């Protein structure tokens, strides 16, 4: 007689409280940016894309892909599956943030540069990074064996993150249409106080959203791996 079976693990909630809080915070930040922040005199209303574009870029490059690199490096050292799940989640959420950067940038660029896109160093390297991270996620889909999948994607994750410092300094190394940083620079931020406050609030809101998305994505990965183990697929 086979042993009866019953549940040992309860799957996670579908909607995370931090995710909801992040979405509400972003809605509040967008409201402040559109209605309660002055219009830039030379660029007009389109400059307000700045409050979505810059926080998304900052979090994708310096939070998500940094987390991807650290988790990947630690996975190669410790071989802990939790680190692989963290790297996988950071890559996916980072790709979403980077997609927003690559979509909002050209809309803003069209109004101030007169062109949607230009193949300069900053934009091209950012697009390359987007493709590498997309490739990492597709690679994960194509490998069934868990440790091999984790090892290969950790190596690719580390290689992707190497592009981040190059993207940051590309505006100093090459002639480019993209402006140099006005906040993340050695001297004081060259931005009026109200605009700087809105930028920092947007950054905090998008960071909260990132944490909510990461937590939801990581829990999904954990539940999925436990389910696969229970089903005997892995």
């Amino acid at each position, binding site marked *: 007689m086979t042993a009866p079976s*019953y549940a*040992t*693990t309860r799957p996670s909630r579908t909607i995370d409280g931090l995710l909801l809080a992040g979405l509400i915070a*972003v809605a509040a930040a967008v409201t402040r940016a559109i209605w309660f922040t002055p219009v830039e*005199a030379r660029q007009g209303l389109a400059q307000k894309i700045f409050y979505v*574009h810059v926080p998304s870029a900052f979090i994708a490059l310096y939070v998500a892909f940094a987390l991807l690199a650290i988790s990947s490096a630690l996975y190669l050292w410790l071989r802990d599956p939790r680190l692989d799940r963290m790297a996988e989640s950071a890559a996916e959420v980072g790709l979403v943030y980077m997609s927003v950067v690559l979509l909002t940038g050209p809309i*803003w660029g069209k109004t101030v540069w007169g062109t949607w896109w230009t193949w300069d160093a900053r934009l091209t390297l950012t697009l390359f990074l987007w493709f590498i991270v997309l490739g990492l996620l597709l690679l994960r889909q194509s490998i069934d064996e868990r440790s091999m999948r984790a090892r290969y994607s950790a190596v690719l994750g580390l290689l992707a993150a190497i592009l981040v410092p190059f993207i940051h300094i590309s505006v100093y190394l090459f002639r480019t249409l993209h402006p140099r940083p006005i906040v993340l620079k050695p001297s004081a931020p060259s931005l009026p106080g109200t605009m700087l406050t809105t930028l920092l609030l947007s950054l905090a809101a998008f960071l909260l959203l990132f944490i909510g998305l990461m937590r939801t994505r990581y*829990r999904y990965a954990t539940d999925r791996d436990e389910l696969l183990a229970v089903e*005997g697929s892995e």
Partner: protein
Amino acid sequence: MNPATPDNGAFMVAGYVVAVVVYLAYALLLVRRQRALNRRWATAPRPIRPGAPPPPDAAA
């Protein structure tokens, strides 16, 4: 508004709409994936937990 300031509010709206759509779509995708996973959990074969009481249908 300063008369020299360009009238490009449509670009601002487009930028914000694109960003909001991408973030909301991804959040909804995560929720739907978790729901689908929870449904799979409901029908998955489950291992025995040591010391736990048997389920009601164990006698059958």
